[in-house]
């Protein structure tokens, strides 16, 4: 029954020489369509060539798209795949699979974001969860949490604020109630993990290790670190790296670390987390914000502050993905305000290999699945057998000089 793909590949760390000491090399596959164009001109390739791998540069030792696991076997052993790639192909043949590292292979790159899709069961028959790329479940802590006092959500211009406060039944209850169900699903479920200390995170992840139905973990590091006076892990480079390292040492599960936008410069944090052993990064979590009561007698949310999400944050998230993509060479999962295919294409162009849809699900629960179809159709109409050629097209071809100032503010 369990057909989840946990294929080990060698893709995690293709060593690439750094061009500059401080700025890492851009992943070659993510840059430009040149890697695909060679495919269309190489009519003499054996018919067993995989369309997703076309354009492999032998000089690099390994096809970069394949290295990222984007695109795999659609139309393999079929000459049609190549012929079609010249001028539009059948959408059914487009392969949207992606490998986020350590064998976490998604059938498509459209995931649902933590906190907006519960445990995958709440939308019932309204959403066919099996067609999603992956599900990130609600933030899970070691012990049950009741969360913040209401009200917890309010709409804002092109967005919303939430202050749920990590309400959840605790990791043991999550495993008991849902893991059995997840194990029977084809869609991988990634458990979003939160904690107040490194020990918390490690303890949660240890419990998730080798539980059937748990395909990976996503660390929500936008949590106060009790050991450091409540300073969030996500805004403290050393703490972010330390928690990543500790979790990495504790588990073989695929490990995604989720970055916070509430920092001056996200790049050193992203680098530190990548160096500490994260398999992939996701970005971004919500932006800190607040709203007032209608009579302006105080804050509206029971918790005073909340996290801003929705289309309003997309430019911020796009900037962060763009910045992070230039300094790490592990896969990036983009999150923030996605409501349509153009948003997905923007994030891919900025260097992400997958996306998560959050707030938009509330208005349009079937959106993520439609985005899968839309992306497939987009690839087909461009004659792409896989979407790797769409990744990183907006990144600078050469890394610029290292920037040592804070977040680059571009007025």
């Amino acid at each position, binding site marked *: 029954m369990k057909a989840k793909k946990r294929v080990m590949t060698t893709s995690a760390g293709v060593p690439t020489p750094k061009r500059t000491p401080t700025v890492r090399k851009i992943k070659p596959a993510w840059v430009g369509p040149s890697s695909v164009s060679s495919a269309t001109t190489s009519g003499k390739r054996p018919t067993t060539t995989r369309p997703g791998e076309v354009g492999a540069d032998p000089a690099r030792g390994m096809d970069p798209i394949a290295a990222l696991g984007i695109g795999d076997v659609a139309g393999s052993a079929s000459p049609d795949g190549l012929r079609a790639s010249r001028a539009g192909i059948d959408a059914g043949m487009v392969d949207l699979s992606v490998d986020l590292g350590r064998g976490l292979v998604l059938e498509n790159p459209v995931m649902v974001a933590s906190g907006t899709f519960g445990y995958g069961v709440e939308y019932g028959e309204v959403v066919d969860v099996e067609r999603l790329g992956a599900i990130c479940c609600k933030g899970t802590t070691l012990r049950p949490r009741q969360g913040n006092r209401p009200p917890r959500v309010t709409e804002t211009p092109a*967005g919303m604020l939430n202050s749920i406060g990590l309400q959840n039944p605790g990791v043991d209850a999550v495993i008991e109630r849902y893991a059995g169900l997840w194990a029977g699903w084809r869609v991988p479920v990634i458990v979003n993990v939160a904690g107040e200390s490194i020990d918390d995170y490690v303890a949660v992840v240890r419990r998730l290790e080798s539980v059937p139905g748990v395909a990976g973990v996503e660390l929500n590091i936008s949590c106060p670190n009790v050991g450091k006076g409540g300073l969030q892990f996500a805004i403290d480079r050393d703490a972010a790296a330390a928690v990543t390292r500790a979790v990495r040492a504790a588990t073989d599960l695929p490990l995604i670390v989720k970055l916070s936008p509430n920092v001056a410069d996200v790049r050193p944090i992203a680098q530190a987390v990548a160096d500490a052993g994260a398999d992939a990064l996701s970005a971004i979590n919500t932006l800190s914000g607040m709203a007032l009561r209608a009579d302006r007698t105080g804050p509206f949310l029971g918790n005073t502050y909340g996290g801003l999400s929705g289309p309003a944050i997309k430019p911020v998230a796009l900037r962060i993905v763009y910045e992070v993509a230039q300094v790490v060479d592990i896969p990036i999962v983009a999150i923030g305000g996605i409501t349509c295919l153009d948003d997905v294409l923007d994030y891919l162009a900025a260097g992400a290999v997958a996306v998560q849809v959050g707030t938009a699900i509330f208005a349009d629960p079937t959106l993520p699945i439609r985005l899968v179809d839309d992306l497939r159709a987009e690839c087909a109409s461009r004659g792409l057998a896989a979407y790797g050629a769409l990744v990183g097209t907006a990144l600078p071809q050469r890394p610029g000089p290292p920037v040592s100032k804070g977040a680059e503010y571009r007025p």
Partner: protein
Amino acid sequence: MRLIDAELVESRRILPGQWIQWYHAPALAASVRAGQFVHVRTGDWSGLVLRRPFTVNTADAATGIVSIHFREVGRGTAWLTHLRAGDRLDMLGPLGQGFQVDPRSRHLLLVAGGLGIADVRLLVDEAIRDGRQVVLLFGARDASEVYPSSFLPDELEYVVATDDGSVGHHGLVTDLVLDYEAWSDQAFACGPLPMLGTLAALAAGRTKRLGVATLGRKRGAGRPIPIGSAQARRKAYLQVAMEQNMGCAVGACLGCVVWGVEGPQRVCREGPVFAANEIDWEAAVGAGAHKR
């Protein structure tokens, strides 16, 4: 629960700023129970990202028509008022737990404050259809906000209170409740939190005041009924429909909670209808007194 493509049949402003809209949505009309709601997608032309929850106000399975009753309070509801007959609306529903009427209850007391009438309106129809006697106590600020009796069935006893005395009882609707507490087998309410809190306090003292046993098995046989279960709610004298801002409306985001005696309760999933004794009234009235 499903996504429903509803077609607007008629839209009428029934009171200043208050509208009732009738939609053709046969699947919903056939399945919705009193107290349940739909989550309505508004146009996103002005950056609205959340749906709006509306209790189903009336439902007629024979014609496939359902109605919603709302006040124009923001851009989402303003958008709704501009819809014309034939326009389509995306509704997710029916959602949540409705009212639980004990089959043995003969006399139902319904209490509504202002727009809270929308939450109990369908219960009026269901109860009368089932041959029960219904009294509806309705409270409003003044005569201009009083729900028109022409929208209510004749079988109903409709008693009005206004804050300024311009119609009916001069004072709070909760003043009227004691007159009916002995007569009624069960009570159902929706309205502002302070009103619900007062009703909950009254309900808690009722058994003692009346010196009678409540409905249900007298002997202690059987297992204790878990709080929040449909059975426990059926046995409760007072059920209340709660309101809260919502995100998903299906139980996924935990955005819509009110505080219960056993911790946070999702209005969209465990509610919107709760037995009054499930709610931590001190916390609920304190937190919800301010609307945005």
